[in-house]
């Protein structure tokens, strides 16, 4: 056996055991009928469909839109990635229906929080773009490039 094969076996065997344990735990800890299994399969599939069918195509489209931004592209990409992720984790706070259990659960106005944070993201993006541009214009590129 080559060393790669040994490594692969050492990963695969406990991996299969853990998957088996997870399935066993699901079976013994949820409803004995098939309704939970069917629902879970539906939710797992739904997560993939939403991610692969909606989120990633949107991201790819945005990537295509900023691909002509030249030197600004890396900054724009980082900015969209940061703002997008902040928005994703803010969504449960913003969209949760009904009143929270008590005033210490979700105590803030999260629309204000989210707006402030996005505004800060835009401000930082502009500042970084401006600084990068100034640095570039002051320091001439080395000859021959």
């Amino acid at each position, binding site marked *: 056996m080559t060393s790669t094969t040994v490594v692969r076996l050492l990963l695969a065997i406990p991996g299969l055991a853990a998957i088996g344990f997870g399935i066993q735990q699901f079976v013994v*800890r949820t409803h004995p009928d098939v309704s939970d299994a069917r629902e879970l399969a539906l939710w797992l599939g739904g997560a993939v469909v939403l991610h692969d069918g909606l989120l990633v195509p949107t991201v790819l489209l945005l990537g295509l839109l900023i691909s002509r931004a030249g030197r600004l592209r890396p900054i724009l990409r*980082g900015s969209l990635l940061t703002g997008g992720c902040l928005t994703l984790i803010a969504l449960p706070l913003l969209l949760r229906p009904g009143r929270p259990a008590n005033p210490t659960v979700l105590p803030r106005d999260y629309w204000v929080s989210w707006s402030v944070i996005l505004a800060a993201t835009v401000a930082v993006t502009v500042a970084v773009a401006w600084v990068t541009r100034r640095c570039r214009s002051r320091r001439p590129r080395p000859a021959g490039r």
Partner: protein
Amino acid sequence: MDLPALLPRFRGRLHDPRTATVVGRLLGVAVLVCFVTGVVSHYLQEPPAWLSAHLPTRPVSGYRVTQGLHVISGTAAVPLLLVKLWTVYPRLFAWPPVRSVTHALERLSIAVLVAATLLELFMGLLNTVQWYVWPFSFRQVHWALAWVIIGSLLLHLAVKAPVVLANWRRRPTELREQDIEDEIDRRSLLLGLGTAVGAVTLFTAGQSVTPLKDLALLAPRDPDAGLQGLPVNRTARAAGITEEAVRAWRLHVEGPKPYDLTLDELRAMPQHRVELPIACVEGWSKSAHWEGVRIKDLLARAGLPDGARLRIVSLQRRGGYGVTEMDRPYTRDDLTLLALRLNGEILTPDHGFPARVIAPNRPGVLQTKWVTRLEVLA
């Protein structure tokens, strides 16, 4: 074989094994931290019989740290997972879709890994805002999926080991000009990813990391919100605590010499002060000053000088955890109190008046409020 015309084509150069390996490594760390801290939380909350008598009560803030890390690493995994999946997205359209039985199994294992991880993070995030939209039990499914994820991750690493090893063994001399340009682009992507991870952490971690509390703008909890400087999960009203029940309250302690105490009698016993955190399974935590009677002293008075395995019964009539169990490591610990006061004041109803449990290194749901009986278990 020619690609069918309808399949998308990807020109971006960072959908490559090197980017997948680099981002995967970071995601792997986050997943591992999240998994280990999750397992710790599970066993502290629901210890099997063989473990229950050996749970550690130190460090006192252990659960605060592990559960804080659990939610922090899970939140940080969101940008990492999305970038990782973006990197490998073109492989979804590999043609032909299935080359062999092994290839089919590999794709199936990846489907399981991706689906389970996406759903796990989604469920975890929604649980922190107490929003339950799925028809199954959060706790049981979150626990089972965690094992499926860690297992299929190991399987995925076994399948990809040659690719990862090839990436590690690649020598710099093999780099071409295009590779150098890619490397610069990759670094800028990683810088963006680092910023995203840093930002989501910075604006949420303050619910458990006190120095960052003023930045916790996107955290479901503010450690400073709440009466007596402490947030609450279940209020007295939600627990169905009535005024009559509190007025008629007595503490009943079982043992060889069982007894009942009024609140005044309880206050007349030696009082002890401890500083211990409330650390919630949802990730928020806060340290507080507690004052009350040691559980150890209450049990000694009942003729149990060496502690006992306890069933703790609350006045609570609605919601879970009205009856909890506490094993010897906690019941004989000097820091485990039946607390009567919080941060210098008598407990408010929502914090468990007349008396509540506070113990070191213990999940918040087990710090039972409105305690009225201590029953001894065999």
